[in-house]
């Protein structure tokens, strides 16, 4: 057990070292959510009058943009497995005495750390859209963000382990990421949407992540916090189980 933890730590540490070395990318990745908030939120909000949203539009999408940032960063981190495979480093990891489950956890924690860092930065910038987050709420949001990231991280790893090529991964990702984002209630409530879209939205784990954050920050959650949490944690655990299983099936 102790050696598995050490293995997880070392895999995590490697991701962090590389993440730190490439912090320029990190800074540039932060511009996307800010553009959404300021340009999309500001521009769209002026043209939008809807009874469903009681807070300002920019404030409404803020939790959604946090969710988007976590989603984008987490899913993309699956690509590190493809890089590792391409460059042969995956063999070094796979041939070590560490269990496949620990490898998946280590990788997922690495990706989640960078996603979480972005999420926290974004929370710190919430004043841009005139939101005040109390320290207590701030602390409550962190574990929620962590589980959202972990779930989508492992989802990314899952896809990376079945798709071998870099291009294939990118293609699948664009098919998954955007619908997940749009159907999560990040940008608009789906309560008035056609039934089939509502169903898809209810099947989307990000819906509950965004809802939990929105509930805490704006007090506008659709579901109870514990229900949201249950689904977000359940999704992460479920993905972890099938992905470690997939890693365990040797080719």
């Amino acid at each position: 057990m102790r050696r598995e933890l050490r293995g997880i730590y070392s895999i995590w540490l490697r991701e962090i070292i590389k993440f730190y070395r490439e912090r320029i990318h990190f800074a540039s990745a932060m511009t996307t959510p800010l553009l959404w908030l300021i340009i999309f939120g500001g521009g769209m909000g002026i043209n939008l009058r809807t009874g469903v949203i009681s807070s300002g539009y920019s404030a409404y999408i803020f939790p959604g943009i946090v969710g988007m940032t976590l989603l984008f960063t987490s899913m993309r981190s699956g690509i590190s497995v493809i890089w590792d495979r391409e460059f042969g480093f995956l063999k070094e990891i796979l041939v070590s005495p560490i269990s496949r489950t620990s490898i998946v956890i280590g990788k997922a924690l690495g990706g989640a750390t960078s996603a979480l860092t972005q999420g926290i930065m974004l929370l710190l910038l919430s004043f841009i859209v005139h939101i005040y987050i109390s320290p207590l709420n701030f602390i409550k949001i962190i574990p929620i963000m962590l589980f959202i990231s972990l779930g989508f991280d492992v989802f990314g790893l899952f896809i990376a382990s079945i798709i071998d090529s870099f291009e294939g991964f990118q293609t699948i990702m664009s098919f998954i990421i955007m619908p997940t984002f749009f159907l999560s209630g990040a940008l608009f409530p789906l309560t008035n949407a056609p039934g089939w879209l509502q169903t898809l939205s209810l099947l989307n784990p990000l819906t509950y992540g965004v809802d939990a954050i929105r509930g805490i920050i704006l007090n506008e959650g659709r579901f109870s916090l514990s229900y949201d949490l249950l689904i977000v944690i359940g999704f992460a655990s479920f993905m972890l189980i099938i992905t470690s299983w997939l890693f365990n099936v040797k080719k």
Partner: protein
Amino acid sequence: MYAIETTNLTKKYKTLVAVDNLNLQVEKGKIFGLLGPNGAGKSTILSMLCTIINPTSGSAIVNGYDIIKDSAKVRQSIGIVFQSISVDDRLTARENLRFHSMLYDVPSGIMEGRIQEVLRLVELEDRADSLVRTFSGGMIRRLEMARGLIHHPEILFLDEPTIGLDPQTREHIWDYIKTLAEKEKLTIIMTTHYMDEADLLCDDIAIIDHGVIKVRDTPEKLKSFLVGDNILVTTNLPDKLATGLSGQDFIIEMKVSQNSLNLNVRQGSRNAPQIINIARDLHIAVDSINIDEPTLHDVFLHHTGKNIREEENDNFISMYKRARRGR
């Protein structure tokens, strides 16, 4: 107890049999070489022994552990240098070694000492904190060997350790391998397609093709027994000469052609005068005699019926560079 013992080890990819009922024993403390052309199944054998892939059937014991039931123990007790690069070039040499030490649970108290020790062994101390992407192919190979040794394995697997490296670097790496075998009391299992490498380093060689061992022996015996020198005698009475020579113990093989006799002979230069003497005694006029000393290449050709390989396609460094360019 053997370091490695396989029983009917087989790997099939759909219809292709990459490794075919392999029965192999390797003694401890030896340098054992697998020699074979492209696609012979060398890397597949190593992958199974290293528990990276499961055999289709059959089994193997590595260091006393079963590769299927005890794969974690097998992994802990072996070190591997893969055919293609497997270091992280975005990390420094030391970081790569640390990562490996932690994965193999080298106690943290002695970890830095071990890292220093292996870095010294492969003479990379002064580059320890440079990013690996600034390394040459030879340095990467040395780093990989160092890495394979940190956790003090009992067996070191080297898959084509010097492929694509320049002659000087290859010699350098040979020195390391020899030093390791002597000092560390390791069993080394290596694959190669360089005859000189196999000859120089290995105590024992198996020539393998289509997943089957064609022959296995010490390099000396392979060279002396299996292939002699080729002697081409031009004469108008090749049949008669062949009859006269039959029964001579230095003759391995004879082939009669229209105006010549192809001989395969042990120690050709020494026995050539003997051939001429016999011809003279039989009053056969010999027009010319041509001695062709075999290289190990011929040994290989003899057993596999093919040349060892076109080098350029899978050059280690060019493969690496190609991959790196894409990044």
